[in-house]
């Protein structure tokens, strides 16, 4: 079996590709090879030993779906890929769009539908949660600079200014909000989301939905160390049935199919959980799940091949991950291989 995985950018803003691969390789049942699909010749996962057997450059989503599909066909002719697991938010739309064409050439995926993807989008989440009785901070969508001037009437500061795909800034004044707005507009475009700031502690859940409304598994975590980019650099699994109940409810409501990360804030004032975001793919800390007893990435592989996967019912509370920074050494000839040929074997 050959599984292709994207998101090998294990940087200070890490993609989930490397931990997804590590999880699959940890499964005793897995017999096969891993193909890395990369966007840049300096993605660290390329140079890690025992992660991807071979790596191939693919075009950025902005190059269009034909370019992406044609490149995958080229790689498929060589590799005979059985399954592709895209792990980045920005590429999901494209992969969902070409999912049927991939099936036709014998490549499986395990992805949500457009409808599911749209419901959890940052600009639609409020309505979805309100409908399902899940608390969510109030937000407004910004589609022009003019919209920014509506903030003072609707919210007290601080507010959270978020990009449609990534990034979030806490703004304590209108001036700070405008500065964040300009950064987001340049980087991610519209809409930009301005959200009520809920003071409290952040909790996260990594989960896998099988597409019928059933939760195959879910592991809850609290970040122990957060970088200046807001990324969890250490975290611990926790036991809170309330948090898991809300997560199950969401997956049921969405009939979610694929891995996901749910981000919550537990209000310091009321002790209630507010859903901040649903990320439509496994998070970069997903390796904590198999470490705690739920190999969710490998369960996704099994589901993709229509195998029966019993639901995970427990995980080990108190399991900790600590991320590290580690210099990988390689030779210029290896870099040349990927930069010139677009293919790489360590």
């Amino acid at each position, binding site marked *: 079996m050959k599984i292709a995985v994207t998101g090998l950018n294990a940087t200070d803003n890490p993609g989930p590709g490397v931990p997804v691969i590590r999880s699959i390789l940890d499964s005793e049942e897995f017999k096969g090879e891993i193909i890395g699909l990369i966007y840049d010749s300096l993605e660290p996962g390329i140079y890690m030993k025992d992660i991807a057997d071979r790596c191939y450059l693919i075009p950025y989503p902005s190059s269009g779906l034909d370019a992406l599909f044609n490149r995958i066909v080229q790689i498929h002719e060589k590799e005979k890929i059985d399954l592709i697991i895209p792990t980045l938010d920005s590429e999901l739309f494209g992969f969902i769009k070409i999912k049927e064409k991939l099936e036709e050439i014998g490549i499986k995926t395990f992805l949500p539908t457009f409808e599911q993807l749209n419901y959890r989008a940052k600009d639609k989440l409020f309505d979805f949660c309100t409908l399902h009785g899940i608390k969510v901070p109030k937000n407004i969508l910004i589609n022009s600079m003019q919209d920014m001037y509506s903030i003072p009437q609707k919210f007290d500061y601080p507010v959270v200014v978020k990009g449609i795909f990534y990034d979030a800034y806490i703004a304590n004044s209108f001036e700070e909000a405008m500065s964040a707005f300009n950064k987001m507009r340049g980087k991610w475009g519209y809409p930009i989301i301005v959200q009520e700031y809920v003071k409290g*502690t952040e909790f996260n859940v990594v989960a896998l939905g099988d597409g019928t409304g059933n939760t195959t598994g879910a592991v809850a*975590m*609290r970040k*122990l160390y957060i970088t200046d980019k807001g990324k969890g650099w250490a*975290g*611990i*699994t*926790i*036991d*809170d049935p309330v948090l898991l109940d809300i997560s199950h409810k969401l997956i049921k409501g969405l009939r979610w199919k694929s891995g996901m990360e749910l981000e919550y804030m537990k209000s310091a004032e009321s002790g209630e959980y507010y859903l901040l975001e649903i990320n439509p793919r496994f998070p970069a800390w997903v390796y904590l799940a198999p470490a705690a007893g739920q190999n969710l990435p490998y369960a996704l592989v099994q589901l993709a091949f229509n195998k029966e996967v019993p639901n995970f019912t427990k995980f080990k*509370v*108190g399991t900790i991950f600590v991320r590290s920074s580690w210099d990988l050494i390689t030779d210029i000839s290896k870099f040349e291989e990927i930069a010139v040929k677009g293919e790489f074997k360590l």
Partner: protein
Amino acid sequence: MKKYHIPEYIAISDTGFLFLPSTGETFTLNQIGKDIFKMLQAGESDENIYEKITSDYDVERGVIERDFSDFILQLKSYSLIKAI
């Protein structure tokens, strides 16, 4: 005479390391903190704890009463204890 309740899910190790599984928070207690916490877990009253501590440590009753009260407030603020 007062007694306190420590939820069953709160575990303390022999080194005085406390773990709150519902939030992932951890705390470290010193020797006397650990002794008091274990007595609280065993359901001892504040009076019994004062007596035990004054007999085990070189400390006046007034000092331990004041420090014990501060310690209880701290434990309450982290939801580690409830008065019964």
